[in-house]
């Protein structure tokens, strides 16, 4: 655990913040003084061109990338030194972009495995997930690997929600799904945020993602290029011209 005492975050303060993150996998840094954050119950979206380090920033926040500089704090507690598994216990949940379900397990078993660390009764949480994603209730005895792309993403998000996280981190949740399914997933993500869970996500579909975002981070080459509310970024002619295709 960190040496810093846990401080309460004020209403305007970010609940989760990766601040001034610099680091990479090898000798070369991918992130350069990059900052991403999300406030309680809000949706923050990281967008940017290919290779901008969006997913890398996400992984850095979750502790899957060694940082040379910068800190990660959740609720005022410094968690920079914690392993990803320990961050799950701190209230973070991560949905990877690929291989984010147990394909050979049934939908319900996937959700049970999401709650593996919990020793209390998980039925209420299970009900919440089924309420959020009704299709999963119908398919709960089916192997998750047999579901459609959109349904798999629902399983993946549902599995992450089973730990009752305070922050849900999604790495391109709409990658490879149809536009209709994408809209539905975004609706569900808004619903999750309304329950008080902060959402930090990386999105390829920048325009749609910024429409639902309370806060947007435009990354370019591992650095913050623009940071504002989703609406302001969408309205910014410079951002529109360079990233959103006019």
């Amino acid at each position, binding site marked *: 655990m960190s040496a810093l005492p846990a401080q309460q975050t004020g209403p305007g303060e970010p609940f989760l913040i990766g601040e001034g993150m610099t680091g990479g996998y090898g000798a070369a840094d991918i992130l350069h003084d990059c900052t991403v954050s999300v406030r309680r119950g809000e949706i923050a979206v990281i967008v940017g061109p290919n290779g901008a380090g969006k997913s890398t920033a996400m992984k850095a926040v979750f502790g899957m990338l060694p940082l040379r500089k910068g800190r990660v704090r959740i609720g005022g507690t410094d968690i920079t030194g914690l392993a*990803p*598994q320990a961050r*799950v*216990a701190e209230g973070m949940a*991560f949905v*990877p972009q690929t*291989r*984010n*379900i*147990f*394909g*050979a*397990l049934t939908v319900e*078993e996937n959700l*049970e*495995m*999401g709650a*593996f*660390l919990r020793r209390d009764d998980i039925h209420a949480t299970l009900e919440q997930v089924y309420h959020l994603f009704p299709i999963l209730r119908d398919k709960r005895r089916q192997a998750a690997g047999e579901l459609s792309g959109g349904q798999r993403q629902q399983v993946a998000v549902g*599995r992450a929600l089973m*730990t009752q996280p305070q922050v849900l981190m999604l790495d391109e949740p709409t990658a490879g799904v149809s536009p209709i399914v994408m809209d539905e997933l975004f609706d569900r993500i808004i619903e999750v945020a309304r329950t008080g869970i902060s959402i930090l996500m990386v999105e390829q579909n920048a325009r749609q993602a910024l429409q639902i975002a309370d806060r947007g981070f435009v990354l370019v080459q591992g650095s913050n290029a623009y940071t504002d509310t989703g609406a302001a970024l969408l309205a910014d002619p410079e951002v529109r011209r360079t990233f959103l295709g006019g």
Partner: protein
Amino acid sequence: MEPLNALVALANFVIVPATAYGAQLALGALGVTLIYGILRFSNFAHGDTMAFGAMVTILLTWWLQAQDVTFGVLPTALLALPAGIAVTALLVLATDRVVYRFYRRQRVAPVILVIVSMGVMFVMNGIVRFVIGVDDQVFADGARFLINARDFRDLTGLDEGLAIRTTQAITLVTAIVVVAALFWFLNRTRTGKSMRAYSDNEDLALLSGIDPERVVAITWIIVAALATIAGVLYGLDKTFKPFTYFQLLLPIFAAAIVGGLGSPVGAIAGGFVIAFSEVTVTYAFKKVLGYLLPDALEPAGLMQLLSTDYKFAVSFAILVIVLLFRPTGLFRGQTS
């Protein structure tokens, strides 16, 4: 009555022995497939783990017999089995601690673990031969037959007799119980589900807080139990000879691969496919055909496709055929 006689002859020489053998292979293949699914390598030491488990059980059986403890009509070895499993579990856990864990931490390629397991195989092989010797050991006791050929003939009035040995019946019953327990464990318990989750997606299992070392330890314990049970049942049914167990590695691997490595259902199906093929192809059908065909057509030869000396070739041939036409096995196993 001729077709009935043919059927009884077939049951006596093919169906009953192949079912017992298939159950033994299935238990062996389940152990191989579990190690493959969880630890992600082909464990060449499995045959010798079976030999070790059987050896410990035999030594305990002899000790029990010397104390005049028997199990009535059932073999005394069944009483010694739990202790045999426990000792084998300790051996494989110790092996994992001093050998496999070292390589696991380095995240070595699976092929290196395969070679490491061959080293373990030679060591276990040596231990078994050193302790109990290289010769045949007989340790079956209790009633020899459930039904013997003469009683069957007297009972049914048929010319052909059907003998079912106690060990064959025990093999099948034990295998069914063990497999049912294993599937219940894997599909119904939290620990079992976490093992399947770990086997399916290691990274996501870590993200879910599943402890890999615990999963690995439980896997080894289950594998020790399966190997010991398979080894003892095989020894009761045939005889115990260390070299035979080493040779069993081939049909066991063939069974696991034919069924689809990593798939428990596949391992069971594969075990029976291999066993029935091996017995059928090496059985002389002269007698069965003699009952079925008119006298004029009665075969002069033995009607045996392959000499029993070539039975291991059957496993190889099936393996090649399955890999050619369905590389992931009958039940889609893991590919990496």
